[in-house]
Structure formats: structure tokens, C-alpha cells
């Protein structure tokens, strides 16, 4: 069974793309925010104090 969808199935896959995008984006946005939070925390506590001590 070799073959592929032709162009007329594009609508379906566009729909899939849209759905997946909204799904992934909402999920990834929260992840990214979490990661940003972690990075900011770590930076402020471990990087800045030493900088201040050096100064």
C-alpha cells in the first residue's frame, strides 16, 4: 500500500494543523512561563549576589 493524500485533503490537514497549534501553544506557553520563572529565580539568587560581592 503505497500512496499519499493528494491536495484535496489539504483542508483536513490544515484543520489538524490549526487544532494542533492551538493545543500545543497553550501547553507550551505554560511550560515556557514555568521555565522562565525557574531561570529568573536561579539567576537572581546565585548570580547576582556573587556579582555584588565582587563589586
Amino acid at each position: 500500500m503505497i500512496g499519499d493524500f493528494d491536495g484535496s485533503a489539504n483542508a483536513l490537514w490544515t484543520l489538524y494543523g490549526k487544532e494542533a497549534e492551538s493545543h500545543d501553544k497553550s501547553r507550551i506557553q505554560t511550560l515556557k512561563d514555568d521555565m522562565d520563572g525557574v531561570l529568573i529565580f536561579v539567576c537572581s539568587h546565585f548570580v547576582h549576589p556573587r556579582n555584588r560581592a565582587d563589586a
Partner: protein
Amino acid sequence: MVYYLQQNVALLSQVSQQISFLAPQFAIPTTPPPPFPTFKPSISDVRVNAFWFMALAFSLSAALLAILVQQWVRDYMYVFQRYSDPLKSARIRQYLHEGAEGWHMPVVAESVPCLLHISLFLFFVGLGDFVLDINTTVGLSTIVPIGTIGLLYTFTTFAPLLYPQSPYQTSFSGFIWYIIQRSKLFGRRFRDRDGGSKLVSTHMAQGQMQLAMEETEDRKGRDVQAIQWLVENLTEDSEMESFAMAIPGSFNGEWSFEVWTKVSRISQDENKSTDQVEPVSGPLTDIRTYAVPPVVSQPLPHSRTILGPFNSSIRLFMPPAACSSPTNSMTLRPIQYSSKTHHSTSITPSRNVPRELSSRIAHLFRTCKNRPVFASDELWRRRTRACVEATTSLICYADAELNWFGDILEPLGNIGSYEKTRELSLAGMDQSFVMRWTCLSIMTIRRMLSVNESVKKDARTAIECLGELWKGDGPDDEVAERNAQRVDQNLMKEWRHRLTELRWIFYRHQIPMSRKMLDILDERPEASEWGESKDKVDLKSVDSKISNLQGRIDEDSYRISRQLPGIQFNDLCSAHLPAPTLELLCGLTESTFVFPQQILDMFHQLSTHFSSKNYRPTDREREAIEGLLYWQENLLQRQLWRLQDLRDGGALGFAVELFFIVLGQLLSTSSSQDSHSVLYVATFRAIVSDWGQYKYSLGTQKILLDTVASNQGIVHRFNYPTYITDELLALLEHILEGQSGPHIENAVQQLSQPDDRRGVQELRTKALRVISRSRTSPS
């Protein structure tokens, strides 16, 4: 530091030795300095250091992981921007998505904040240990807040497991949730749509979703709260408009119905002191739950006082505060009139949600009156439609009362003429709007007619006019009825003559005739009283009086009466061709008013057509003739009852008739008969809700009896579903309770004759039972 100290000590001892060489007279005991103590960190120091360095390691690895995760996520999302070909992009996404799920990327990502939290707590523990070692007081004052935070954190972690609605959660909650749901034994369960009990998802957010969607009483409460919240928070007209547009759709199905009932119930509980209408629970069509109302034989006080100098219909409407009659108290459930019918609910402001909503929509309705304000007709139309549909839904489903909406007749009439609801209905288009508009219109017309003095006056004049056709003895109404019967008989005879004329035409053209037709044509018609000289009685004045009345109703209802679907009009217009004339005659039974002189004129017109040499009936005409074989015997008599009903009965019977005719039209174009049963039943109940006041109106009794009892009663003209005929019979039972009279005897006699039409017999038997029951029950 220790190192420097030791160096200092070594140097000092060296100096001391050198000094002792210079001054030997002093004998200085030279003691070699003690050996350096070997460095041995205390256990506490080790602990503190271990904690702190672990904390450092954890937080740094969290940072590293965070950077990595951001990178992964960026790469993952890149797919959507990279390829424009939907298929390619979809495949790559699916490929990567499977990988991400299979390798538990979300779990990994969620564990990053966990690492940070662990690191923080390690630091805290180390800090506590360190400070406690130095000083107990300082230590305790540090440990207490740390401990409190720790406890709070633990609670937060477990809170969503105990109360899934809890907003507090930590990164660990998800893991614990997963473990608990995996263990099956302790797992939380929910009922899914099919009613089966299932374990809640192992994914916490999804699990919360499942619990939120679970079909429970709690969810109903939440829905109710949500609607209430929405109503309170919508302030703009445009917002209200979209809300109004959304209302009709929110009444589909049992669930939504229950929710709305609850919405109105809650508010009723809140202001119980002002409640006059208390719904009695019971199935919708249970006849027995109708309560017996107090007998109100006197007209309401306000109906006498409304004849103002300007007889416009706007003045005929009570302002909401004055409408305290039960006319306007409409509930879906069978209603019970409290003894204090004159105590108004409307005076006291209340926080009732449907009430609040109604006043908002009433405001929206008022904005519709000023059509030029709207930028386009389309905008106006949209708003008006939204108002109409929302109003009907609220009245029918949410126990709202019609008078809460104020005077809506004018916008209703305008939208009716603009949308051409009659045509829409005939074309079977836009059914849900047409249906709601029609239901609301009949309710509004009924309310208007019941207090409209000029309509009553016109009806009175028309009856008097009928009474003067032939002089007779006895009360005016009886004379009028006899005269009406006489006109009916003559019309009938005239029509028979037309049929005989037709017979020759049929023979001449050798058109086959149906069995029914042959049977009827075999009878030899009697000559009517009028014969050739038709102007002996003054039927013309009857026509003009009725035309006046009709004009008045049309005008005062803003021509809504003209737009009701299914109602025929037999105005003083003249159709010259035979086909339309015949069709007009066919439609007589569906018209609100008939004009005897005009019918007579039409007969004569037909006669001229028939007598012309080369007349040959077309198919259309033949069909119409078939429909007219049984001439409606009591056209004028019925009309008289209708007039009496308009005069004394507050148009109750008139409205019921109108409702049934319209319903027939609506049902014939709608796909399913039961889909809007609640709406129709509610409309019917709203129309007849004040039957107690008009129980003793003879015209109303007669016309209602006729709808069921007569051979050609309205109920038999269309195959009406039982939910609505049951309502009619229930009304009949209550109206006839304790009543007697020849008209009831007559109806019983009519009903006792067997009828072989399908479905009709059953209804007639039921009706007979209802009537005999109301006769035997004590008054």
C-alpha cells in the same frame, strides 16, 4: 584564617627566641608552641554544607534543565512555522508529538520547578540547622517560619487531591494525583455520559475537567450561578443583544430547561414575600393539577378606567405596576391563584434573575422602537429578532411574565411586517423565529384585546347590527344568534344552488365526479330566502361593522394580526376570477372574520361565471370545489360567538381559535411535531391563564365547545398532537365546571355521534368524558 593565626603564632615565638638571645639575663622558659590542631569540621558543619551544596546543585540543574526545555520546546514549535504545506507540517508534528509524549517530555518539563522547590527546602533546612547551632533563640525564630511554610507547602500539595476544585497546587500534586489514580483502589471516580462509573484521568488537569463536566446536581448549580453571573455582568446594550440572541438556543433539551427553572426558582425563594404565583409541581399535561380559581365575575377595575381621550392602543396598556391581574401571570406549570390577586409582584423591586433579564430585554425592545437610529435595517432587524426570540423563550421556559417586558406590541408588529412572517411560514423558512414570533404575538394580542375597550365596543355594535337584521323577541343576544343562524342557512342554500349549477357544467364537460360530490348533488336544494332580490336584509351594514372591528384590531395590534401565519383574510376585496374566489371561500374557516354580504356577492359572481357558455373548471378550481362540498353550516353563528367572546370574554376564545389555526400552519411546515411542544403548551397556558375571569362568558363557552364538539371544529381540521388537545380539554373542563345550558347539551349530543375520521373519534370520546365530568362535578 586558621592558617594565618598559626603563622602569627610561629612568628611571635621566633621573635621571642631571638629576644632571649639578646638579653640572656632574663631566663625565659621556652616552651615550644603546641602543634597545630588538625582541621576537623563538626558534624553540624558537614550537614549544613551538604544541604547547601545540594541546594546549589539542584537549583543549577533546574536552571540547566530549564534552558534545555526551552530549547526543546522552541524546536518543537518550529514545525509550525517551517513548512507551509499542511500535510508535511501535520506529519512532522504528529511524529514529534508522539516522541514527546512517548518520552514523557511534559513530565520532565514539569519536574523542573520541582527541582527548584527541593533546592529551596534543602537550603531552608541547612539554614535552620546552621542558625540553631549558633544560637537557640535565633535558630527558633528562623525555624518557626520555615516550618510554617513547609506545612503550607505540604497542604498545598495535597489540597487538589482532597478537593479537586482547589486552586492551590504544587508541582508535586500532579505526581501524587497520578500515583493515586494509578492505584485504582483509592482513585477518584466519576460518572461518564453513559452513566457508567469510571476512574478519573491520571492527568490532573484532565481529571479536573472530567469532574467539572460530570453530570451532577452540583454542575447544575454551577450552571445556574454562571447564568446569574452573566446577567449581572452584562451592561452594554450590544452585549445584551448578543445575550438575547443566545437565549433561545439555551433552552434546548431537558438539562437546560431544568437549569433555567432553577434560575427562576432561586430568585423566587429570595423574594418569597412578594410572590403571588407559586408553581405547583406536576407533569405538564396533567389536567388535574389545575387549581380552582376564585370566581371573579366582575371586570377588573382598570378595564373601566382606561378609556382615555386618545384612544390609541398604547394607552390601553397598563404600565407594569398597574397590571396586577392574573391575566399577566404566566407560568409554565399549572397555576394557582392566590387570594390576593390584586397585590402586585411588579411594585416591589426584586433581584429575580428572569425578572432582571426581562427588564433588560424590555429596555432593548424600547430601543427598537426608534428604527432610524440604527445604522442599517439589518442591525435593527437583528436586535428585534433577538428580543422577540429571547422574550418568548423566557416567558415559555423561565416563568417570566409578559408584562415584565412592557409594551412590545409595536416592535412586534414592525418586525412582523418587515420579516413578512406569513410568507416566511408559508415557505417553511426560518421556522424557529416564525414560531417564537407567532407565539409571542398571540400572547400579546390576547393581552391587548382583553383590555381594549374600543374593540369591545366595536364587537358590541356588530352584534347589535346582527340583531337588527330581523326583529325578534327575547334577549338581544338570542335574537342575534337566531338571525345569524338564519343567514347561515340562507348562505348554505345559496351555495347548494351553485353546486347544482356546477353539476351541469361537470356533465357537459364530462368531468368525472367523486362519490361524495354525487351524493351531495343528488339532494334537491331549497330556494334561499333571498332568491334574486338579495337586498332585502341589510347584510352590508353587518359587513361594515365587522370590517370596522377588524380594522380596529389590526390597527391596535400594529397589524400583527395580519402577519400571523395560517390566518386567512376575507377582506372586502374582490377576486374576479373563479379560482381565487373559490379559494377565498375555502379559506373562510381559517379567517378571523367573515363578511356575509361579501360571500353572497362572491356566490353571484361565481354564478355568472358558471352560466357562461364556455366555462370549464380548471384543476385548481375543481380541487377548491371538492373542499367546499361540505359548506360550514354555522359560519355566522360562530362569528357571533366570537364577537360575544370579544365583548365579554376578554377574547379568550378568540385567542384560542387563533392559536389553533396558527398552530396548524406552524406544525404543517415544521419537521417534527414534538420538538417545540413545551413552547406551544406554555403559549397556550399563557393565553388562557386568566380563564377564571371569563368562565361565565357565554360566547367564550360556546366557541370553545364548538372547537371540539362541532363536526368541523378547529381541532378536527388538523391532526393536532395530543399534548395540545389535552390542554384544550383541560381548559374546557375548568370553564364548564358547574355550568349548564342548552349549548352544553347540544355539544354533548354532537359529540355522541360517531365519527369515522382517523384520530378524531378518540379525541371526541375524550372530550365527551371531560364535558360530562365537569357537568357532574359539584359547582
